[in-house]
């Protein structure tokens, strides 16, 4: 079966073709799912989130302008907006930057090897242990490519707060990764000794 282009699928969806929407869902399901997991959506809520996000995509298809952005970029925006919308319902205080004690014990001398073959899900699992205000700003800046000014608008916080959140999130992630790496190295050494 020849894969239809996004534009064709969109046009058919606008005419009400459910089959095209199914194709669109199956094409971008994993992408949206990954964004949700990265932003800390729990596996319990993930189904509802996907449902809401794809319905929003379907309802907004008529407003999509291919000249302004790629469809994937447009979907990313909708997905993140929906995730933030759900988080706002939980009344997360992004201005609470946390205690500086959390990032005090950092061993700057230790460096994570760049060729470390770590599983993507493990990284996301480590990131999700981060305080919720950190992970949002951290993901938006580092992975999703938003600027601090955009983050400050999205989260309704000052730009400086956004910088602090990202900085602390980054340190938190490095700390977690080092800990995880040390544990892996220790386990690897134990295996070798046993062997």
């Amino acid at each position, binding site marked *: 079966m020849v894969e239809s282009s996004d534009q064709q699928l969109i046009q058919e969806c606008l005419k009400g073709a459910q089959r095209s929407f199914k194709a669109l869902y199956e094409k971008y399901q994993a992408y949206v*799912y990954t964004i949700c997991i*990265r932003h800390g959506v729990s596996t319990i809520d993930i189904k509802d989130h996907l*449902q809401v996000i794809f319905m929003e995509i379907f309802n907004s298809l008529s407003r999509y302008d291919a000249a302004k952005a790629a469809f994937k970029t447009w979907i990313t925006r909708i997905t993140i907006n929906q995730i933030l919308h759900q988080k706002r319902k939980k009344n997360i205080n992004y201005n609470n930057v946390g205690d500086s004690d959390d990032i005090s014990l950092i061993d*700057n001398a230790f460096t994570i090897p760049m060729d470390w073959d770590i599983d993507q899900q493990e*990284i996301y699992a480590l990131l999700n242990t981060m305080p919720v205000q950190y992970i949002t700003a951290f993901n938006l800046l*580092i*992975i999703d490519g938003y600027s601090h000014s955009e983050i400050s608008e999205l989260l309704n916080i000052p730009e400086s707060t956004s910088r602090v959140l990202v900085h602390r999130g980054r340190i938190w992630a490095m700390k977690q990764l080092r800990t995880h790496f040390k544990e892996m190295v220790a386990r690897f050494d134990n295996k070798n000794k046993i062997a």
Partner: protein
Amino acid sequence: MEPTNFDDFIKSNSKNDLPVPPELNWENMNFTLPPAKRKRRILPWMLFLLIGSLGIGSVLWYVYQQDINQSQSLSKNDPIGIQNQHSNSIPKKEDTFADKAQPQAAGENTITPNKLRNQDTFNIEPLNSAAIARPQDAGKQTVNRNNATNQEKFKTEPITRVDVAPRRDAGDNSVNRNKVTNQEKLKAERLARIDNVTLKDAGDNADNRDNVTNQEKLKTERPTRTATEGGKSIPVNRAAKSNDIAYTKAATPHQNAPSQPDSTEKPSQTRAKLPEPNASPNVVPVTPVQSTSSENKFAASPNSPADANIKLLRKPVSLLVSIGINKTQMNHNNARLNNAVTPAWGNSFQVLLERELKNNWLFSIGLGYQRLHTTFYFEKDLGKFVNAAELVVIRKTRQVFHNNYFDLISLNIGVGKQFQFSPRWNGQVLMYVSPTRRLNYTGRSLDDSESVVTYDPNLGSQKKWLLNADAAFRLSYKLKKTDLIMGFNLSQSLTKSELQSAGNSTTTVQPRVFGLNLGIRRTLGKQKK
């Protein structure tokens, strides 16, 4: 580790998509997609509405014009009508009438206003009806003048079976004429002429009464009725004024008999005829032809297709009652009449039945009453005055104001669309076509000599019907069971209405009305939830 290196490490390990658990497959999701949104094509609908309104309007206009033409032609050919209008105040017209009537009346035209009053008592001599007959009936007048003789023949001729029905009718006419009560006299004022002519026609057809062929033709013609006057058709609306009396008189078979060579019956002016209760056994009872279309709808069985129409009628219908105030521009044809700068307020009352259609369309029908109040002024010349001190001539004028009142009743038929602004607020835009009847008018105008004259409705007006096009906008606020309505409407008369003022000066008006309305709307029956 540098932050940039760390960011790169995270990015490089976030490129791929995670595997999706099977419970998130399409089959396990519950997507209920809404139907595709149809583009709101307002322009085509507005065009459709406009064309539809124009279509309805043109049909009504055509019917209206037909009616007017017939009325005018009748009044032109109806000497009694002319005499009645102008005998009191316009001797010139009377002379004109006399001139017309003289050739055939040959000196017997002795009709005077007093004689006309005598008609109320139904004691007019047959010769009078001959005298007032139209010029084209001249050839028949020799027969008409022998009406009395013909009547006698009626009584003396042997009655055959075939002749029973016509003779009974003729007899009934003569008897009924004597039994007309005082109350009926007023109603049958104009019918009197028909009676006279009917008698005359009875006499005309007396020679043909034994003609079986004519009777057979009669059977085929009786289903439709034409009110005739001496072989001249009368518009149905005119004949309808005298209701059953006019019906029985005019429906006598003599008028439909084929022996009248100058009969100018128009098929469009026919009406369904009721079967006669005492019809002769030899005369085949006539089955009403035109009564089937409307009556059968109501007599349809519950399982018939008409039942579907009844079900449709069960959909919610709203009753709207509103009162309002209005301002009017009368648009006189008289250049000297000027509308006052600030028009006076009139009032209005409206009862409408509205039914929702598909896609928020609305059908509306109802009755409206309007009392238009206009104030006009004219410049009255007070003459020239010489100011000797300053050696100037001053021409003085005075603005004379007069109030005019017009009472109108209209049948409003319209369609529109409603828009929902919020759960409680709705808007409606409607367009109406409104045949309007002018009930009364009081006020003044200028006659040909530019002196102020008072409208005299009793003198009659040539055009009492107007055709209006209305556009209305309403805003409604929903309460528990009723809606509060406020809105405005703009009504433009498509036709000119003539006002017959004293002194035979005719002023035409073409009102344009702007109204503000307040009202309530209540849904009749149960609403669908």
